[in-house]
């Protein structure tokens, strides 16, 4: 019961603060006129200030509540398999986009080229894998990821992500000989 009373009181009293401030601060002789929604309007005194403030706030919040801007990004690049190793069948090569949970086709010639609607904050992790080769993850959100070995360029103006150098997948060696003992901290 008391909770309802507090909410009701707040709803009634809170709008009085800006209303009082507008009434005190704006001169009664003030006037605002112009076009609003195709109609010519003319307001005076504190009410003119109230309308101007409401229109400003409504425009401001409408703009900011729209959320982040999506655009279509284009991502281009190529894969290269370690020289001397037999290239895998195209069916055995995959490029997965993490976060987006999408699989992208690798073209003949081991190139990839795809478009993705997303925000700048959602630039994906590209997870490349191929049978018999060591997998590789490339983070397109980090400028110059990999210390330049991929030649990764992200053009935010045109929405273009380009790998200027091929992504080299190394052949899996058979020499996996664990020497590092993982010491559990939690969980496992």
């Amino acid at each position, binding site marked *: 019961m008391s909770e309802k009373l507090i909410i009701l009181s707040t709803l009634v009293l809170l709008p009085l603060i800006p209303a009082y401030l507008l009434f005190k601060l704006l001169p009664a002789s003030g006037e605002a006129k112009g076009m609003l929604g195709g109609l010519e309007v003319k307001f005076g005194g504190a009410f003119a200030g109230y309308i101007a403030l409401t229109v400003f706030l409504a425009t401001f919040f409408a703009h900011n509540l729209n959320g982040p801007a999506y655009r279509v990004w284009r991502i281009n690049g190529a894969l290269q398999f370690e020289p001397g190793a037999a290239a895998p069948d195209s069916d055995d090569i995959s490029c997965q986009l993490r976060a987006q949970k999408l699989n992208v086709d690798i073209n003949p010639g081991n190139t990839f080229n795809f478009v993705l609607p997303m925000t700048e904050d959602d630039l994906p992790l590209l997870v490349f*894998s191929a049978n018999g080769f060591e*997998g590789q993850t490339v983070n397109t959100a980090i400028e110059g990821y990999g210390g330049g070995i991929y030649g990764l360029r992200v053009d935010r103006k045109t929405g273009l992500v380009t790998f200027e150098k091929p992504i080299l997948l190394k052949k899996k060696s058979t020499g*996996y000989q664990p020497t*590092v*003992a*993982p010491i*559990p901290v939690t969980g*496992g």
Partner: protein
Amino acid sequence: MKRIIILITLILTIAATASASTVRGKVVKPDGATAYRGAAVTLEHAERGRSTPAYADNDGMFYLRNVPPGDYTMEVQTANDKAVFRITVLNQEYSDVAPVKVK
């Protein structure tokens, strides 16, 4: 003078390349034999921060490249489990981490 600068740059580049390792490991299910595909593995260093994750492949193998030697926290995450370990990355081409079991 120019030659000396080039030589020093070259030496530093070689030194930097030589002192990065590929952390290689395997993620398996609790039975110890079945590979866990898709597990995300990240490394965290006190000063260098957190790495981009690597994902276990069909054989459960993961590869984290260009990791400077040192002590790291390794996090292995699956849909159902998260396991955290401490590892020491060695100054060699591959630092092979013993298989880790996750649910």
